[in-house]
């Protein structure tokens, strides 16, 4: 039986880990390679790095950082942020990343998902979606959640899967950075309508939030940032608590 995965997420800006609240007001959270090594040590199941400074001239810096991370850590990791072509993805995968997360670029040009999955396999493509409730429906938002679109969350997830995404990383923008708990209802709907694994993101504040998202939404993995960065929830303690609640963890 597959273990439920705990995934620390590192937002990277100019080579440093940062964390914001509701996608804004960033604060520094340390050196990404050091932080990654700490998480591996603590029993993280996977890591996600999102480069939020992603502009063209910084691409090389990111590839260099990915090389350093890959040399250091022995668990899978995903890299995202501004990837909009097979070539861009190839450079990051060659540097040692296991998966590429695509977000805004895929919404603007959905064929990108097909191109990436054909070039590297579905297992390499994580469809990251940032969504927010707008008048009772969930709409996809772009550019780190700043720009609303008319794209429906559930339709987009279905389309992404059909185009070859291997996993869905769903961030609720209302919850992100708030520590009010995961967005259970929408996560459950996305999970039940997908035949690929769903990673829950946005809102983790206490251990009960993780128990709830695994039990109620049935997702494969839960991702969080600040509760791990600032050691509010140590991963070994979280895993013990999940295990005590009959949730299978590594």
């Amino acid at each position, binding site marked *: *039986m*597959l*273990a439920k*995965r705990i995934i620390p997420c590192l937002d990277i800006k100019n080579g440093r880990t940062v964390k914001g609240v509701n996608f804004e007001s960033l604060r520094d959270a340390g050196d990404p390679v050091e932080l990654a090594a700490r998480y*591996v040590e603590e029993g993280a*199941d996977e890591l996600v790095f999102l480069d939020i400074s992603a502009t063209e001239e910084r691409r090389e810096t990111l590839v260099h950082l990915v090389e350093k991370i*890959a*040399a250091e850590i*022995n*668990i*899978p990791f995903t890299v995202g942020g501004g990837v909009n072509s097979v070539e861009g993805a190839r450079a990051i*995968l*060659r*540097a*040692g990343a*296991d998966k590429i997360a695509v977000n805004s670029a895929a919404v603007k040009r959905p064929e990108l998902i097909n191109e990436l999955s054909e070039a*590297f*396999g*579905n*297992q*390499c493509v994580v469809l990251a979606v940032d969504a927010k409730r707008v008048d009772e429906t969930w709409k996809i938002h772009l550019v780190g959640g700043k720009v609303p679109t008319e794209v429906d969350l559930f339709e987009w997830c279905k389309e992404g899967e059909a185009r070859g995404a*291997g*996993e869905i990383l769903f961030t609720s923008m209302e919850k992100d950075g708030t520590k009010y708990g995961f967005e259970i209802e929408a996560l459950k709907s996305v999970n039940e309508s997908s*035949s*690929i*694994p769903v990673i829950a993101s946005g809102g983790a504040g206490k251990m009960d939030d993780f128990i709830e998202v695994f039990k109620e939404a049935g997702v*494969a*993995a839960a991702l969080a940032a600040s509760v791990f960065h600032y050691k509010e929830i140590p991963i070994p303690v979280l895993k013990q608590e999940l295990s005590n609640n009959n949730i299978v963890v*590594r």
Partner: protein
Amino acid sequence: MKIAIIDYGAGNVKSVQNALNRLGVESFLTDNPEEIKTAEKVVFPGVGHAKAAMEILEQKQLVEVIQNLTQPVLGICLGMQLLFDKSEEGNTKCIGVINGEVKPFTSKELKTTQIGWNKLFTNENELLAGVSDDYVYYVNSYYVPYNKAYTIGWTNYGIKFSGSVKKDNYYGCQFHPEKSGSIGERILKNFVEL
């Protein structure tokens, strides 16, 4: 110790090399038949589609090379599957150094691709020494059925399947030892020390 990692454009060879580096073991990436034949040990990784991978191996004239290796060989993920006779993925004839067929997961209750950490149960053997009931990292939608003739480690995902196999000098891991934390490192170390 020189380990050849077969680099045929299918899979994350760099991760395997990084993992060996962390163990202090020298390795090199190659698709050259002579270099592969003369290496002390050979790692045969692979990610992607069986048919596409076999086509590349044929173009590079590596099928026969792999069939005739006598040193320890470790197939990883798709690399392990390709060691068998045939894969239902694209109905592909494979390298065939182990008798058996590769099949797709079909359980209705589970996601068709197994992605994540699952428990590996083991028989006593040199590759998996020191490993039992430990979690390893899988990414696969096809599997090699459990069979006493070659299965040395197994996992349950709707069905009991081969997590690790052995026949003569050919070893295989369906999971990714290079991504399976300290347990994966243990397995790679066991392989290096064979």
